[in-house]
């Protein structure tokens, strides 16, 4: 009886929270006329895929999609190449300043992005990095780097340093020790760090809206262009939105458990 009640309430809440997403997906299969029908038609009458084709035809949707992929994968992979050695260094070879460096890194993340907007805009403008994939990837890499270093650091610290030392005794170079011993042992941590950063980069909007226009615009910026009155086609907007959120929703669902740990740096267990 109690279980039936909590089940009912739980599902009601879950469906209410999920409703805007469900509604978007359903609307993406409606015709434009049906999409703005009032009272709203819950279920699509004809289930058309037309919107998905139209979104691509009218706007080169997939080039924006590709930009999102390049930016989020690029900034994550480059970031890991920089962050893994740094996290290794601080976790296994801590010096007197390590604690301060860690805190300083975290503090840069707490600085609001607007604090750096004007100079970065001016620099990008003068060197031609505005609306450029390299520029926006670089910004996201720097923006998420502190989180990557911190997450990897918290995962690395759980690995006994004896194991790394044993590898070293056997004559492994630092690079080999890192690639063959540390990374395989901390694979879940490395994977969830990457997933969290892909999510953060995929959804990042402040920099993409300020620094990209057409060429390098990822989905966050492209979707925002629908807010102008001439772009108001709700069924097409829904199709574009569905394609934009589904891949990252799947990534998020897969990594939900690690996400708590990652976002709170393990402070909540």
């Amino acid at each position: 009886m109690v279980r039936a009640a909590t089940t009912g309430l739980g599902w009601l809440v879950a469906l209410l929270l999920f409703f805007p997403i469900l509604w978007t997906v359903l609307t993406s299969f409606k015709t434009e006329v049906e999409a703005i029908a009032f009272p709203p038609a819950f279920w699509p009458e004809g289930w058309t895929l037309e919107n998905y084709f139209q979104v691509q035809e009218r706007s080169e949707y997939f080039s924006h999609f590709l930009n999102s992929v390049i930016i989020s994968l690029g900034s994550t992979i480059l970031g890991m190449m920089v962050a893994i050695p740094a996290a290794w260094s601080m976790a296994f070879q801590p010096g007197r300043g390590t604690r301060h460096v860690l805190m300083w890194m975290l503090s840069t993340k707490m600085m609001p992005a607007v604090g750096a907007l004007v100079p970065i805009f001016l620099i990008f403008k003068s060197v031609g990095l505005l609306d450029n994939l390299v520029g926006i990837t670089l910004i996201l890499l720097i923006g998420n780097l502190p989180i990557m270093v911190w997450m990897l650091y918290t995962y690395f610290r759980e690995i006994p340093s004896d194991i790394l030392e044993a590898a070293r005794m056997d004559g492994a170079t630092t690079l080999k020790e890192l690639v063959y011993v540390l990374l395989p042992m901390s694979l879940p941590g490395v994977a969830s760090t990457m997933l969290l950063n892909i999510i953060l980069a995929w959804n990042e909007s402040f920099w993409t809206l300020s620094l990209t226009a057409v060429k390098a615009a990822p989905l966050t910026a492209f979707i925002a262009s629908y807010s102008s009155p001439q772009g108001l086609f709700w069924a097409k907007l829904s199709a574009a939105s569905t394609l934009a959120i589904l891949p990252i929703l799947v990534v998020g669902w897969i990594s939900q458990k690690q996400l708590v740990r990652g976002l709170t740096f393990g402070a909540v267990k």
Partner: protein
Amino acid sequence: MAGYQMKRTARIALAPSVLLLIVGMIVPLATTLWLSFRFYNFMNPTLGGFAGLSNYEFFLTDPAFLQAIINTLLLVGGVLAITVIGGILLGLLFDQPMWGRGIARLLMIAPFFVMPTVSALVWKNMLMHPGYGIFAWIAMKLGLPPVEWLSNYPLLSIILIVAWQWLPFATLIFLTALQSLDHEQQEAARMDGAGPFDRFIYIILPHLGRAITVVILIETIFILAIFAEIFVTTSGGPGYASTNLPYLIYVQALMQFDVGAASAGAIIAVVLANIVAIFAIRLAGRNLTA
């Protein structure tokens, strides 16, 4: 000498991260500080030179500034109130045994992964639209006139949108914390005759203390910087009714081209965020590296 060698390798391994962060964050911040004391306007290239505190004066005495500060704080406070209280309640709910709990949880956390520009547009056009939106339809069913959400209650609307995105995050954190609760202690309290309310106040709430702090800190940092939701839905309006600090600085810099004033505003935003960050760093320092 192996130790020395190792230290050197460790320093080399750390260097790229430190350099990137200095070049990418500290240099722009220092430049912003410098620009905030200069006359600099794209529209008026002849103007230049040292401005003293006049940019700060201009920014601080602008009526939009006070409004933006108030809006920024209301946005943070409102979203925090909804997500912390709602998150605790939902955490308790989803901690209970129920059929299909795994799937219900997945549906519940989904809003957290929706990109801000999408959620803003969906809420604006398909939920809050006074002519075609779901809310208008619900109002009609109840025999009420439809509400013009974004023009009549712009800040409240944005608070609702942002709270929808962050409620799942808070719930997820509280749920995780609840799972580490000692069930024997709960059981013992029940045996001693403690009702559900007493158990909540004396056992569950203290146990959630750290999780609440973490949720408040993380959300504050992100919500102080909310931008896309405002950019897409109201453009800060009507008037400045829904302009927060980041949006005001964006408008000043990239739409009114007043780099000097925008820089002064940015420094003020940084100071504001740092007041919050001091607490965050202290907590992080105590909890994470001890």
